[in-house]
């Protein structure tokens, strides 16, 4: 990640070291930080990827959501950050800042079951509307019975 992004993360989050995979950002401050990155020229929306972490003995069930932005043009660089939320938590939407976040968030809602607060149209994107469950959760078996076809 470029130096200006590292400096932003250090000042905004009070971190000493920023891991290359991106720092963990508290959900409340996510829109502010992403807006600041957008000001700095990170205009291209890359990805929004949610992961389900099932409960184990040591920790409760949780989700992480990772975001990536890119600064276009010669010498292009990426900015990456992550958000960790509890099983029943939700995360503010970025669809107001980035038009591309809209469908990515709908996809993550559909497949992983994360609730994006303030999203204008949080419907399933890939699967039929009446589908039960969220397939990319770890407790969803890959060959779940899917009859009838709709």
């Amino acid at each position, binding site marked *: 990640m470029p130096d200006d992004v590292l400096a932003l993360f250090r000042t905004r989050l009070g971190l000493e070291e920023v891991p290359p995979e991106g720092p963990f950002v508290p959900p409340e401050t996510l829109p502010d930080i992403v807006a600041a990155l957008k000001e700095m020229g990170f205009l291209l929306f890359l*990805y929004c990827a949610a992961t389900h972490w099932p409960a184990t003995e040591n920790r409760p069930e949780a989700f992480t959501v990772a975001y990536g932005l*890119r600064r276009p043009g010669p010498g292009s660089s990426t900015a990456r950050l992550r958000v960790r939320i509890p099983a029943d938590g939700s995360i503010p939407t970025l669809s107001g800042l980035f038009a591309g976040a809209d469908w990515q968030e709908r996809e993550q809602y559909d497949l992983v079951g994360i609730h994006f607060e303030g999203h204008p149209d949080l419907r399933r994107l890939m699967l*039929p509307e009446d589908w039960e469950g969220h397939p990319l959760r770890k407790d969803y078996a890959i060959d779940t019975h899917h009859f009838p076809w709709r």
Partner: protein
Amino acid sequence: MVDAHPSHEPVAPALVEVSGLSLPAAITHLPRPDPYLNVEDYEPEADAMALNMGPQHPSTHGVLRLKLFLDGEICFKAVPYVGYLHRGVEKLLENRTAIQSVPYVDKNDYVSPLTGELALVMAYEALLDVEPPPRAQVLRTILMELQRIASHHLWLGTFCLDMGGALGGGSSVFLYNFRERELILDLLEALTGQRMHYNALMVGGNRHDVPPGWEEKVLATMDRVEDRLAEYEAMTVDNHIFRSRTVGVGVLDPLLALEAGAGGANLRASGVDHDLRRDAPYAAYGQVDVRIPVETAGDCYARFLVRIAEMREAIRIVRLLVSGIPEGPIGALKPPRHVNAVKLPPGEVYVGIESPRGELGTYLISDGSPIPVRVKIRPPSLHAVSLLPYLCVGATVSDIVVILGSLDPILGEVDR
């Protein structure tokens, strides 16, 4: 002859600075339609009507469904529905090892399978910190460019087919393009033994070395393809009907394109000078000086011009590289004997490459077991389709078909 559209005249357009990026002023900050417009609130001038296109429609390039709300013939709201080809590849990749997973990503973007493979394989290589040997890198670059030519040929053919009778019965350009695409498929078939889903790459290198005489064949094919390219240009570039269907249609604001995550020719036709092959070189792109064609009009015609120029550029890169493929091994790792021969270290990587449709990325989380925890494919086509609610507003139904074609989405990649 149609009067040249003002934005296609060869004068330097006025630029505007946005967050450190120079964008063409004429098309930046265009008014954005509201994709969530309430249909009840809209007051139509003519008869309002809802029209459903797809999921089985010859010009939706696969199984895309579009719901169009029309005011007379002008669309005032468009709602795309995707997911008719959602096969759950991401879930499948979470249950497959690094060696097993390569053939699955072929089927995502089935018009350019090799770029899909490279994005996945490079993510695994970044995680494992493996560097393929120079011969593999150069071969990969040649393969990517051959695939780009084949993919753009298919795009040009279907794009002209969508415009129907405009071009001498509509299917002439389509038939000509497939003729040249077959030549490139022959080259790839000679290398990998498959016409479409090649499974040509693996973690740490390539799977197939070049057969004898392949380089000469590549050069001969490139000559032939370049000759024929002039033929297509003669049929389209100055064609009255072609221009009146594309010039000024579907103007894409570069800021919207960036924020929506569009890539490839869609971005470069709107004046954004961005291409990962030059800006964040991977494989052997660092060794060649990639010239990036940029247009500033942002319409369907500009996207067409950029793709044609990209084909020429790809031919140039292939010619440059194929005459000097370095000697050496084609893989950095020993050929695997077990499906779980590659042990993954824990970590989290994102790798993006420039596919013919834009930035194709793979985001991978591993926890140290042979199979990854999460694989997310960043599909450029999904972002291209998500532009439709903005681009279709104010267009006629016949223009919507052209706009959709000019964005070049592949539904397999949208839905995965």
